[in-house]
């Protein structure tokens, strides 16, 4: 532990100060193994103005990704540009490592940026100092249901909270957990479900100015509803110990009939994938609709030994080739570009089209304005603890939200 935290600065001595002609692109494994192969081909296809190979590709595993990036950046051997966690760019901006993408945005505006991206997506990247990244895909959280299970039990697809509760009770009688989720080791599904309920009731974790604002009537109401689902055993009480694989196993076996999951769920549950469909967003008790999504982005870095102009040029090239991933069916996230959203590639799966049309417009991220704090909130211990407290059901929503508010407010970055 001590050694790990001390590794990054040690390696900084090995950093190179000379500018490289080759743009180093670090990418996460966003799909099956073939995804990384395609990403490498796209990257290798980039050429400089004089025809030389202009970019190198490196796939970075999610495990300890922050350590990997921090070490690379500190050593001057980090990427010039990368994909990564949704709020990673905000964190590294705060640490002075991000090269802002304003020039690229200007370039896009000249081409009519408002028509390039889906509504509201580009704005999520803006901070007081500029754009920390450029969106490239949307990691949605939508309500899936198993058509066969609902048909066999005579259950209607829920449209609001009351009908979700009714459907849950009916499915429970038939021996199913109506609302599949998990909050075990490394599993953020439970957190995303709870935040989705808050957003779906017009609530959220932050006020418009980006200050923690957890203890609101709308949030309390949403968490009361979540605890009702737990109390009625519509949510499996054992879910506190469920890893992501445990939850997928329940979807696969048909034990789970409904639940909030990402847009790639059908591709990860074998033959059951064909039985799954996307519900329309639920209407909250006050008529609100809302859901959580993550805007995954391409971020550029300072001190990478690459000239910023060269990195920006590669980023523009990469955006022009995003369509390839959806054409080849190697990515299950949603596109950010309207051109891909309207393409035949997406139209092949009506469920994805439904997600773009019905879920994307009502989806929000944790806060209207991105900050470094969000990186610590998303996947951090405060939200993890809060999720388990709510799903355990032995602490009231107000108390749990008050603790969460204090924890988020105490995050000093």
């Amino acid at each position, binding site marked *: *532990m*001590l*050694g*790990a*935290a*001390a*590794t*990054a*600065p*040690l390696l900084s001595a090995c950093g190179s100060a000379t500018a490289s002609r080759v743009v180093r692109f670090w990418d996460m494994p966003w799909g099956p193994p073939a995804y990384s192969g395609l990403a490498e081909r796209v990257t290798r296809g980039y050429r400089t103005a004089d025809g030389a190979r202009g970019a190198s590709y490196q796939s970075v595993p999610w495990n*300890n990704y*922050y*350590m990997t990036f*921090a*070490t690379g*950046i*500190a050593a001057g051997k980090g990427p010039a540009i990368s994909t990564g966690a949704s709020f990673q760019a905000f*964190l*590294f901006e705060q*640490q*002075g*490592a991000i090269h802002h993408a304003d020039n690229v945005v200007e370039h896009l505006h000249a081409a009519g940026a408002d028509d390039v991206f889906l509504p509201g997506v580009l704005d999520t990247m803006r901070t007081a100092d500029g754009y920390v990244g450029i969106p490239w895909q949307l990691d949605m959280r939508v309500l899936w249901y198993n058509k066969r299970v609902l048909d066999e039990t005579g259950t209607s697809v829920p449209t609001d909270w009351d009908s979700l509760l009714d459907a849950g009770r009916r499915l429970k009688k038939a021996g199913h957990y109506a609302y599949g989720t998990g*909050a*075990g*080791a*490394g*599993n953020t599904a439970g957190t995303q479900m709870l935040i989705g309920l808050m957003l779906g009731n017009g609530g959220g974790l932050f006020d418009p100015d980006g200050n923690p604002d957890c203890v609101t009537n709308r949030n309390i109401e949403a968490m009361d509803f979540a605890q009702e689902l737990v109390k009625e055993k519509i949510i*499996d*009480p*054992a*879910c*506190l*110990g*469920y*890893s992501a*694989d*445990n939850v997928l*196993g*329940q979807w696969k076996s048909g*034990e789970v009939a409904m639940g909030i999951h990402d847009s790639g769920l059908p591709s990860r549950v074998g033959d059951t994938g064909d039985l799954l469909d996307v519900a329309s967003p639920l209407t909250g008790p006050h008529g609100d609709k809302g859901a959580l999504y993550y805007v995954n982005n391409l971020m550029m870095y300072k001190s990478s030994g690459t000239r910023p102009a060269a990195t920006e040029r590669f980023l523009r090239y990469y955006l022009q080739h995003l369509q390839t991933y959806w054409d080849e069916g190697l990515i299950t996230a949603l596109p950010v570009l309207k051109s891909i959203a309207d393409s035949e590639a997406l139209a092949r799966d009506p469920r994805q089209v439904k997600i773009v049309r019905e879920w994307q417009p009502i989806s929000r991220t944790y806060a209207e304005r991105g900050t*470094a704090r969000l*990186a*610590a909130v998303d*996947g*951090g*211990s*405060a939200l*993890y*603890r809060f999720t*388990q*407290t709510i799903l*355990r059901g032995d602490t009231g929503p107000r108390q749990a939200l008050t603790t969460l508010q204090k924890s988020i407010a105490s*995050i*000093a*970055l």
Partner: protein
Amino acid sequence: MTTAPTTTRMRPSRKRTMLLLAAPSVVLLLLICTYPLVYAAIQAVHNGSLINTGQYVGLQNFTLTLPTPEFRNAALFTVVFLLAGVFGSWAIGLGLALLLRMPVPGAKVFRVLLLLPWVMPIVVSATAWNWLVATRDSPLPTIARALGFGDVLFLADPTLAVITVCVVKVWLSFPFMMLMSSSALASVDDSVYEAARLDGAGPWQRFRFITLPMTAKSTYISWVLMAIFCVNDFPTIYLLTGGGPVDATSSLIVLAYRKVFQDFQTGPGVAIAFTMTFVLVIVSALLFSRIRKADVA
């Protein structure tokens, strides 16, 4: 007739030789450990990140982190985990070592099989235990339901999660203790037991007054090692429960990891790791003093 003194003073020339022989290892260890320790000490008194050192804050990372309920809970669980890990695995390991001394058919096969938990990669073990206990349809909850215990939430109930994690730790660690105990028992001459039998000592007396004292040194060494293994055991806990439910199985090493790599609070995380190191050094020193006493005895 005079008896030889029980202790002899080492001759200076021999001492020098031993120091010279140990020097390469000591220098290598210092090279490997000194930089991380020094830089971690710097991080512990700054408010920076893994990229930037940040501003000097003195002992603020310690004073703000150590009195918190989450630190206290983690420290308490670490103690429980340590005690269960050390003494649970020692009791089972010693018991099996004693059993395997008996002329049992296939003892060698058993000895190899009993080593499996220890030699198996931790990711495989954690996955296997997850399969055993995590969901309603897992084997152990199914058996518990069949026995009339209802739905037993092995990983979702805080108390049961603590017990489960400790049981897994014991399961992972007893082969090591069994090996240590076996080697210690092998050094006890059978004639000692034979003499005790002739004097009328029963099995318990032989165990109490021969086995335990004569294997004490090895036992203390294995306790020190196992204590270090337990306090520094991140993967067993993190892969099984992630420190949950509701921090019930969050040990100090898990808390430190979360602080640094999930909450991005490098200073407080390193402060926790430093505190752990300090406590471990004290515990090890105390146990080593016991070893020296056992040696003298």
